[in-house]
């Protein structure tokens, strides 16, 4: 019994963490070049809409995900081009992206699906095999690995890939140089604009996958689908201090406290609204403790 509970906490931790981790990994690239993208929420939302919509038309998960990624990359790139070419403020562009995505999603929701609310696209059974690759192998159906979706694998793979890109490739080193000191980077011949565009491209890709990871596994879409996850991802970027592994732990802290709150909602009499506060408070305290440890010995 206790074992089952632990397994279900683990499964729900991973599934809550996945979209946040993916978006946060994307955000980390933009933070690395010192142009933090606060439009993660918008990129996730637009991708979650288009990936599920194209998936429902084409019947192919891959086509859906790729469309979601493409649109997210397009929006992400348009942000950084506005930043570079027209010197717009990146913070405001982020807010604009969030607003535009919300507007576009409800606009297309009405035009394409005829609904502003929740849309359910039909039964899940056809895609289960694709989404949970280990489910039918070796009696994994009820165990931990049977419930790990392809997106969960991608999220944790993204951490590994990003760790490699940021710390072990020349691209990553250039990006970090741009973020640390623009002038120094320019003086050694690094094209800062190119690196910023690259960072925003990565951001678009990961936010695109993150959006698809929200809508495709549940085969439905709601206008409030992202529900603040983009902002939590931003918190994870800051908590993780530009380090993919750090970001993974930050996202896992939020995921774990969310899944605890989910479990308590079914097991106890405490109001769900009160329990939903837990992950935000846990994240806030994690932020405080992280800041304390960071500033230790600096005379703060």
């Amino acid at each position: 019994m206790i074992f089952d509970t632990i397994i279900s906490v683990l499964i729900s931790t991973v599934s809550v963490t996945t979209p946040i981790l993916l978006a946060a990994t994307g955000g980390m690239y933009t933070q690395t070049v010192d142009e933090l993208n606060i439009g993660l929420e918008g990129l996730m939302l637009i991708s979650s809409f288009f990936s599920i919509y194209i998936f429902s038309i084409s019947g192919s998960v891959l086509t859906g995900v790729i469309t979601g990624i493409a649109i997210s990359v397009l929006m992400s790139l348009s942000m950084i081009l506005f930043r570079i070419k027209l010197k717009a403020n990146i913070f405001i562009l982020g807010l604009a992206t969030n607003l535009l995505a919300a507007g576009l999603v409800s606009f297309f929701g009405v035009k394409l699906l005829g609904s502003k609310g929740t849309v359910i696209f039909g039964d899940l059974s056809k895609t289960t095999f694709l989404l949970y690759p280990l489910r039918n192998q070796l009696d994994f159906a009820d165990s931990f690995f049977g419930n790990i979706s392809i997106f969960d694998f991608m999220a944790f793979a993204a951490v590994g890939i990003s760790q490699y890109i940021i710390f072990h490739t020349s691209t990553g080193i250039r990006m970090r140089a741009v973020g640390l000191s623009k002038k120094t980077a320019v003086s050694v011949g690094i094209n800062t604009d190119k690196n910023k565009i690259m960072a925003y491209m990565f951001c678009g890709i990961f936010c695109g996958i993150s959006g698809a990871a929200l809508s495709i596994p549940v085969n439905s879409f709601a206008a409030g689908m992202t529900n603040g996850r983009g902002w939590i991802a931003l918190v994870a970027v800051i908590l993780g201090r530009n380090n993919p592994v750090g970001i993974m732990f930050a996202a896992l802290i939020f995921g774990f406290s969310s899944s605890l709150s989910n479990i308590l909602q079914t097991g106890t009499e405490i109001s769900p609204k009160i329990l939903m506060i837990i992950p935000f408070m846990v994240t806030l305290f994690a932020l405080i403790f992280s800041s304390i440890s960071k500033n230790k010995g600096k005379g703060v």
Partner: protein
Amino acid sequence: MNMKRIDILVRKIFRISEYLIPFVISILIGITIMAFTSGNFVESLDAFFLKPFLNEYFIGNMLSGSIPLILTGLAAATAFSSSVFNLGIEGQVYSGAFVSTLIALMLPDQNRWLVWILALFSAFVFGGFIGGISGFLKNRFKVNELISSLLISYSITLFIDYLLENPFLDAGSGLISTATFEDSYMFPKILTPSNLHCGFIIALIVVLIVYVVMKKSTFGFSVNLMGKNTCFSEYAGINTRKLTMTVMVLSGGIAASAGMIDVFGVQGRVIRGFSSGYGWNGIAIALIARNNPLLVIPAALFFSYLDAGAATGALFSDLTPEISRIVQASIFYFITASFYFKFDRKDMKI
């Protein structure tokens, strides 16, 4: 001499037109979308752009819609002009509305002025307290106030949702809301039957006060200096920690009073989620107004106009209301973009 004068004039025109370009482009985007999606293009243009001015009712509602936006815009502008980022306005508005409603419900049959002052005061103090927490965390632990205010805002919103659903639920109303306080406590209406109320005048007065403080006082000077360069202002002997705290409290307080004024002007009770979007739009308005308290008023009116256009557009034609959100969003894309980047911009730094 004459040439110089012409040069200044040309620059001024460039400056103004640079400011207007985002609005023109985004409205053109809106019109393009209408052209593609609407069955009757002329009718929908008329419904969106002109019908908000059709009669006193629509004009009144448009002005009424701008009241919370003016105040949340002001709250954001106050914080942003000192480079302190308060993203918790959403939760501060909600809590201000809740606290002031509680005051009104606890004090039946009192002098209305007493209730108004008490409600406004307690909303301001509570909102200021919430903002102050982020200021404290920033000063004491160097926690990014952008993130902490956001997390606190999410938590507060959930907590008030809980209070509305359980202990303070008025079961008879059919909505998830508190009980309605007595009618005599409501702000007097202007332009009935529209929603416009005296809170509009209060909002304008608050804007004026903040403007004078920001432009004419030493406090305002140090706030702006800190916004431009924190290191330098520390060098100049300004206590930036104290200032950060003051600005967060002020911003939170103004945001909370937006909630109080909206409740006392329109609903007379707190309905769950009524203030959703006020905070984000306020931030947007502050950015459009470039943190100038006076410019917050036209920016808020413009926002409210687009919302009103969306409503009348849906009422009188086949437009979907989301068009206004797309127009609003495209304004942001262009608002800080500079279109004369070859022009000498030394005097145009934002």
